[in-house]
């Protein structure tokens, strides 16, 4: 008679209690699987979102831009950006390259007319971006986010993000006054809203405005320049190698002081997600501890209930380690079964959600947070992390049983036999 089969039968002695232990561990496992899937979804979303809106697969900026962007960004533009784009497009690894101009601006949405002049009462901070709409078609295609009734802007026109339009009750055909605050002086313009874009990224949707790249260049008196060039490489291209090739190509074409960075080295959003994952792992650990207190509790109860049985087994010659193994096996079987159930249930929930997505925008107002994530997240079931959760869950819930079981092994057989 193997210890394992005794352990297995012991589990069925008190079905409800075993079921309770199993449910607790399964619930924790389920939650962790789900959390990890959300995390994976966020990472994927981050990757695609970052690539589309902010970084491309790689981003080119003037080498000094990052350091001086808050002091004198206009001193660190990419000159002859057309030439740079042409050089990039000649690179076989590059699928597309687009130039952008991004600048903070103050926007007045309403004003009085006094003495034939416009008197705005107040202005609001926005982030303005100049984009080459035809180049961006396969990149950040604003046309696909246009609310019906709008169109892409021409000279003297602008697109406003959905949240901004809603906040100030703006509609296509309305005008606004834009002041771009540069270090060396302000430029201004009255711009007509050609359309409204409902963007999937809450933060962008709150206060972004978009205009044609050439309009931005004209407004800022920066003709022929761009603040950054985003590159998308062809599928299957190793980003690291491609970035190195781009650096060489730019240098060969006489571009100096340009900084080419792959997407994963840009900004701190990636770091944020990494940090969040670490916090999640930590949370997962504590969840397990919480869930496994049920196992500890159950094992302790079982030990007290079976005290005389323990005495009998000890009298028959079972050693302390064998005793521990018996109780460990019980916890292990429950843990493994629970982890399995949790993983299966978690996966069963995630698989449909990974297609339909979870609309976090409806749950919380992401616009008020600083997360660069979309409203709708598509949880991703990752085989490795799911297996990890399964083994982790099983291991923690069975190992935790050592705590009460070690005591059982130390009980003197005489004392155990004496108990009723």
């Amino acid at each position, binding site marked *: 008679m193997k210890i394992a089969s005794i352990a297995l039968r012991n589990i069925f002695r008190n079905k409800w209690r075993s079921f309770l232990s199993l449910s607790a561990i399964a619930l924790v496992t389920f939650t962790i699987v789900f959390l990890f899937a959300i995390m994976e979804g966020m990472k994927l979303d981050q990757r695609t979102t970052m690539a589309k809106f902010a970084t491309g697969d790689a981003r080119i900026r003037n080498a000094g831009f990052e350091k001086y962007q808050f002091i004198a960004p206009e001193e660190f533009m990419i000159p002859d950006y057309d030439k740079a784009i042409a050089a990039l497009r000649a690179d076989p690894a590059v699928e597309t390259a687009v130039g952008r101009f991004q600048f903070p601006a103050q926007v007045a949405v309403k004003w009085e007319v006094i003495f034939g002049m416009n*008197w705005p009462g107040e202005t609001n901070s926005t982030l303005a971006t100049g984009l080459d709409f035809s180049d961006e078609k396969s990149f950040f295609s604003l046309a696909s986010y246009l609310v019906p009734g709008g169109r892409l802007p021409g000279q003297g026109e602008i697109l406003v993000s959905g949240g901004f339009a809603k906040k100030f009750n703006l509609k296509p055909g309305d005008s606004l006054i834009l002041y771009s605050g540069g270090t060396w002086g302000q430029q201004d313009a009255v711009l007509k809203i050609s359309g409204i874009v409902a963007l999937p990224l809450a933060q962008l949707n709150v206060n972004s405005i978009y205009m044609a790249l050439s309009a931005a260049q004209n407004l800022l008196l920066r003709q022929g320049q761009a603040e950054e060039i985003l590159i998308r490489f062809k599928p299957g291209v190793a980003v690291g190698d491609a970035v190195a090739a781009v650096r060489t190509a730019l240098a060969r074409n006489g571009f100096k002081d340009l900084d080419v960075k792959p997407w994963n080295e840009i900004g701190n959003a990636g770091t944020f997600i990494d940090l969040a994952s670490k916090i999640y792992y930590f949370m997962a650990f504590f969840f397990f501890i919480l869930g496994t207190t049920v196992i500890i509790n159950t094992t302790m109860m079982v030990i007290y209930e079976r005290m005389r049985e323990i005495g009998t087994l000890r009298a028959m010659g079972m050693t302390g380690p064998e005793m521990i193994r018996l109780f460990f096996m019980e916890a292990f079987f429950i843990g493994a079964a629970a982890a399995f159930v949790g993983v299966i249930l978690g996966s069963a929930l995630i698989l449909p959600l990974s297609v339909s997505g979870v609309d976090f925008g409806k749950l919380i107002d992401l616009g008020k947070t600083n997360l660069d994530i979309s409203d709708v997240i598509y949880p991703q079931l990752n085989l490795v992390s799911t297996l990890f959760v399964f083994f982790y869950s099983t291991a923690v819930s069975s190992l935790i049983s050592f705590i009460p079981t070690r005591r059982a092994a130390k009980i003197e057989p005489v004392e155990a036999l004496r108990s009723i």
Partner: protein
Amino acid sequence: MTIKRSIWLALLVVLPATVFAQMTAEEVVRRLEKNEVYTSSKSSGKLLITNQFGTKTKTFTAASQGAEKLLLEFTNKEERGQKILRLNDQIFVYYPRSNSVVSMQGGALKDSIFGSDFTYEDLTGEKSILNLYKVEFAQPSTETVDGVQCYHLRLTGITSVAYPFQELWVETARLVRRKAVFFSLTREPLKEMEVKETKEVSGKIFPSRFVITDLIKKNSSTEFALDSIQINPRLDARQFSLERLKF
């Protein structure tokens, strides 16, 4: 606002060439300020704004009436037509491209004008140095600045002022400002103003070129240079009004 005194008034100051042999420190200041009185002025010039990235030039024309009205109009390409109108303690900025007027208020007054070492706030306020500072001679009371003998004055704030301490050098011969250093409450030097050239117009002496240096930022200075100055010209008083900003 003392910096304003050093800059905008200094720009338009008219001083007699009288020399007083034995004067108190207050007397020096009183003479200095008395001679900064004029009815109107008209000038044109340029601002050379230098920072660690290079130098930008902004050109302007300026008109003033009394001590309360000032109209600056920028004539360089980037800001052509942008105007700054000061009426008493109010500052208005006119943007021609959007035909809009922004009233500068609150924190915006502390903004730098085109990245220079002037702020909008420097254009407002009009109080005598003697109302704001206790004035006394330094020891020794005279000092040579670039070969010119000057009274060396120490100013200590007696009310809430942007610069609690100042040192001021006033030419002994002509009683015009030569140099000033502005200190923080912890007596850290913040800014320095130095007159580089003067011009005599209608028998009065103008600092036609002076430099403000930020002593905290590296390579940051603003040079103010006047090309032409007219004292008490015939001015259309209506140009200092909001109605006329767009013209």
